[in-house]
């Protein structure tokens, strides 16, 4: 089966399986076994099935797209053999993967032609590779004019990767939840809920309902990932939101839980408001909902958002009889081998030889190498870059487009006018606003720590694979739409978030809150990565983070399950009692810390975080002012991360037990809980290896949309570096070294304070009392929002309530009294006038009848006589009238 048919089938099934499970549990929940225990089997079976289907899809994708490994080897050799290559050997792999993918799999047209070139170099004919993405309508809901509502899919390597990650983690969480939620199989006495009569709440278990929500959650997230248009994205986006609402408020009887659920939902509404504006701006400017180009029934290609925003170009070189792919913003990396007055001959890094016409360079505004200058001399490492991702109209006559319909004229007009660009900025900011809400970025980060009220498996799911991942995923998905200005906003929001959250995490004592803030912080890293142009870096971190963060949460859940408390101050020394949990959690901590032997091997977090930092450094190199802040915050954040993560681990597992009562009752969790931890710890360790043939960065590169590096024409002097440039040794080595030392510093502090207890945390607390207070109170964000938003709203609400009570109700009461009076009057009229009339008529009728009664004498002979009289009279009358008439 061809991938374009099998992939949608597999992923579609994987998407719908949790829905089926949800439907079954909704309909038959409590009847599934004792206390609904079978519901967990149904839900787990469904998600495992989804996982298996996703893995098959992953395999198909891998062998059809990356399968051309021989080709890759050629490229690798070319890179290694290229003189002046600054890459070190161990980086070569990763860089090769990326650069190859950039130029080789960027875009369908792009990919075709590049491969065409590559094959031409190897003596092959036309390209045979698969397109970068598959997109099609599954089912058309409605078409109203231009507005087309459909259920469609957009499958690229990012989709496949997300499916694999989400289903894997969700499967493990389902297994884990089976152990964790075991209490819900029986009736529950909730000690945190005190009823008005002073007793604790006693309620039946809700085991099946938990799995019902989990299934819906998975379905929603997978639907968001596979969505092929922004309408579907929005629908599943909101479904994810409502699922998180259900699950955070799972212990709905607890006031804190219901408040947290409300808070999460309301804060997300704020973000979604912006998102709706963004989507409307996108619709209003582009007139389509679809991501990719879809062939409709007439065989005509309808342009999607991506190709409308960044239409691919091809330059046809008549001399070479060859199509050279020149996508907007695409980079051809290599060196110049020959120059003539008319053209430049370029040996690309991937071994291709390209001839670029100088006239094209002028027309298209192609500017030079990494430093932004035109190529000076022959034989110099060189990269051509189109600074603006947009198509220049001057190059339009060179576009030879054989598979995609020409850009509609109105889009060109739109793109060439100012307000079109502004609309794009608004759309980008709006969509990012939604991402801010979902991914708990500053300033909407306040809901995520409160969301810890939900059961821990939910926290694991929310924090790794679904809810918050949705925001970053969406930012990644819409990356081609974001303009430079939006990217800069994203970068700043990410940097501020990561720093704020990391600092708050230092003082937190609730084990889950530490992890929650660390999630916020890591999400900030991802946003920062995306914001500084590191699209692959940000999403890479999303994947690796999902593994180690779900691992960390499930470990903390295991701890909470054993100790029945969240407070780290009552723990300590637990590693003796629960070694599986302790050491798998250590793996997670090391992963988030980014532990590695530099330039050799490291945990997954090492690779992803390094690529973000490297990209930030690369950005710093081009934009000294912005870059200093962004990169500085990111680097500082990594040190703080190291400190608070090890602080948490030491406080929980190391040292002596602080609370012996707790310690005595601690026990290792059942295998159904710690086996998923072990599996996840393997992934947390290994998920980031870049040299694997199916490594995450390589896969991501296949999904990169061309022209990723956008410029910011509305801002001066902001240039976004191409991501491959960050893999240039200078930045990457710098990043690796800096991170290693900064993180080691954080680790050292943590060891000093909590591991070896050389320093007393309480003394530090006193010494930095103002800062500690600030951090302890989470920068007073909740209080700030209460003062700015909540209290004014309450005040206005009170005024309105009073207005309602006194003014509107008063009017209504007066009206009611008036109506009552009128109805009394009406009653009088009815009683005396209408009824009187009717009675009068009745009385008349009665009296007439009474007087006529005597005519009925009952005497037959009298009647006969009357008849005769009548007859005579009638005859006389007729005769008289006839006579009178004639």
């Amino acid at each position, binding site marked *: 089966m061809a991938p374009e048919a099998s992939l949608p089938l597999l992923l579609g099934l994987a998407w719908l399986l949790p829905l089926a499970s949800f439907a079954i549990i909704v309909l038959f929940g409590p009847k599934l076994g004792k206390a609904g225990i079978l519901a967990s089997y149904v839900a787990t079976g469904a998600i495992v099935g989804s996982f298996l289907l996703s893995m098959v899809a992953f395999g198909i994708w891998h062998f059809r797209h990356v399968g051309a490994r021989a080709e890759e080897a050629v490229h690798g050799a070319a890179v290694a053999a290229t003189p002046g290559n600054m890459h070190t050997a161990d980086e070569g792999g990763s860089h090769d993967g990326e650069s190859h993918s950039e130029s080789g799999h960027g875009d369908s047209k792009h990919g075709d032609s590049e491969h065409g070139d590559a094959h031409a170099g190897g003596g092959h004919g036309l390209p045979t590779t698969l397109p970068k993405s598959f997109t099609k309508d599954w089912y058309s809901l409605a078409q109203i004019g231009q507005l087309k509502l459909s259920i469609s899919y957009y499958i690229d390597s990012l989709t496949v990767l997300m499916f694999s990650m989400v289903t894997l983690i969700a499967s493990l969480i389902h297994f884990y939840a089976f152990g964790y939620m075991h209490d819900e199989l029986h009736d529950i006495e909730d000690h945190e809920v005190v009823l008005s009569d002073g007793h604790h709440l006693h309620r039946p278990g809700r085991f099946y309902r938990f799995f019902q929500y989990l299934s819906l959650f998975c379905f929603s997230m997978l639907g968001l990932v596979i969505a092929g248009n922004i309408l579907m994205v929005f629908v599943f986006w909101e479904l994810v939101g409502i699922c998180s609402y259900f699950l955070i408020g799972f212990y709905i009887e607890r006031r804190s839980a219901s408040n947290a659920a409300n808070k999460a939902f309301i804060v997300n509404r704020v973000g979604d408001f912006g998102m709706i504006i963004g989507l409307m701006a996108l619709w209003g400017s582009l007139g389509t909902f679809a991501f990719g180009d879809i062939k409709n029934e007439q065989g005509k290609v309808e342009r999607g958002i991506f190709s409308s925003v960044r239409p691919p170009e091809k330059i046809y070189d008549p001399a070479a009889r060859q199509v050279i792919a020149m996508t907007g913003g695409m980079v051809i990396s290599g060196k110049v081998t020959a120059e003539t007055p008319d053209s430049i001959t370029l040996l690309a890094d991937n071994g291709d030889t390209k001839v670029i016409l100088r006239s094209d360079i002028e027309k298209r505004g192609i500017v030079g190498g990494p430093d932004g200058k035109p190529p000076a001399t022959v034989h110099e490492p060189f990269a051509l870059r189109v600074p603006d991702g947009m198509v220049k109209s001057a190059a339009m006559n060179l576009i030879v487009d054989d598979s995609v319909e020409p850009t509609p004229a109105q889009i060109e007009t739109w793109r060439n006018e100012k307000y079109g660009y502004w609309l794009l900025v608004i759309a980008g900011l709006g969509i990012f606003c939604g991402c801010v809400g979902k991914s708990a970025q500053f300033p909407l980060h306040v809901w995520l720590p409160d969301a810890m009220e939900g059961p821990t498996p939910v926290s694991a799911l929310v924090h790794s694979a679904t809810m918050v991942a949705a925001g970053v995923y969406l930012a990644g998905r819409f990356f081609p739409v974001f303009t430079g200005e939006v990217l800069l906003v994203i970068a700043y929001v990410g940097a501020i978030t990561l720093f704020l959250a990391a600092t708050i995490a230092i003082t937190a004592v609730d084990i889950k809150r530490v992890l929650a803030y660390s999630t916020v912080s890591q999400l900030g890293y991802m946003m920062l990565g995306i914001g500084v142009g590191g699209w692959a870096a940000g999403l890479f971190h999303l994947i690796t983070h999902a593994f180690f963060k779900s691992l960390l949460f499930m470990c903390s859940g295991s701890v909470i399950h054993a100790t029945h408390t969240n407070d780290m101050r009552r723990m300590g020394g637990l590693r003796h009692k629960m070694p599986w949990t302790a050491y798998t959690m250590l793996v997670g901590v090391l992963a988030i810390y980014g532990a590695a032997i530099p330039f050799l091997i490291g945990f997954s977090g090492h690779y992803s975080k390094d690529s973000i930092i490297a990209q930030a450094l690369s950005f710093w190199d081009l934009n000294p002012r912005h870059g200093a802040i962004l990169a500085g915050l990111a680097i500082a954040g990594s040190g703080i991360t190291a400190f608070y993560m090890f602080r948490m681990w030491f406080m929980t597992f190391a040292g002596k037990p602080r609370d012996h009562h707790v310690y005595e009752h601690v026990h290792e969790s059942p295998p159904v809980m710690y086996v998923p931890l072990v599996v996840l710890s393997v992934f947390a360790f290994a998920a980031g290896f870049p040299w694997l043939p199916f490594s995450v960065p390589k896969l991501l590169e296949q999904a990169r949309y061309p022209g990723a590096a956008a410029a910011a024409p509305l801002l001066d002097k902001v240039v976004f570096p191409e991501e491959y440039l960050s893999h240039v040794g200078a930045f990457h080595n710098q990043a690796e070294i800096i991170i290693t030392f900064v993180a080691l510093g954080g680790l050292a502090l943590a060891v000093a304070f909590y591991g070896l207890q050389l320093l007393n945390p309480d003394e530090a607390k006193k010494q930095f009392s103002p800062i500690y207070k600030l951090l302890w109170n989470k920068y007073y964000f909740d209080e700030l929002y209460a003062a700015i938003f909540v209290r004014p709203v309450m005040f206005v609400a009170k005024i309105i309530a009073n207005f309602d009570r006194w003014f509107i109700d008063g009017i209504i009461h007066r009206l009611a009294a008036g109506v009552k009076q009128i109805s009394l009057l009406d009653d009088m009229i009815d009683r005396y006038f209408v009824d009187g009339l009717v009675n009068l008529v009745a009385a008349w009728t009665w009296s007439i009848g009474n007087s006529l009664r005597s005519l009925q004498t009952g005497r037959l*002979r009298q009647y006969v*006589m009357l008849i*005769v*009289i009548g*007859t*005579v009279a009638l*005859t*006389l009358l007729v005769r008289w009238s006839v006579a009178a008439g004639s």
Partner: protein
Amino acid sequence: MNPINWHTVFFYLYALVACGFGVAVVISTNIVRMALYLIFSLGATAGLFFLAGADFVGSMQLLIYVGGTLVLLIFGVMLTAQGPLISLRTSGGDWIVAMLLAGCLAALLVPAGLTVSSWNTGRPAPTTEQVAGNGAQPVLVSTTEKTPQIPLAGGLPDVDNNGIPDKQPITAAPIGLGLLGARVDKLENVPEALRPGMSGYLLPFEVISVHLLVVLVGAAYLARSKRSAMNR
């Protein structure tokens, strides 16, 4: 001086009998005698029917009225003729009022019957041409001479010098056909457009048949209701 028209003579005879006994019915106070006088009156009326050429109706008058209805009446008389009920006297006032009314009615009806001049004498005798034209063709007595006459078995109505056909046409057959819906007497003399209105009396005939049945059932029921009430 015309010879005596025996048709007229018999008319006056029957008319005298009918009117005389009719008045006798009124005057008589004895219910039994009234019944007897009524028989005579109605019988004479049957004679008048014969004289008017309605042989079938006259015979029906004799059969149904004189032979059926009046026998029924006499049964009623005999069943109820007990002493005081035989002759119930009426007050003089009633008589006077009734006579006044009778006078009024007579003043209306008798002049009304005499006003139309064409009603005063019978049909004039047909001319000899007409008789010759009709020749050997036996026809039903027709109301108009223009239209072809329907041949009818039973012979030519020979008309004497008084205009009275010496052979009365037999009316039973046309009446029977009329009751069954075919008006053979009117086929030839009505414009085409009026043909649908010419239908006979099939429906009234059927209605009256059912009516009779219902009446019989009702009469039987009424007559026996007392006894059944007593038995109950």
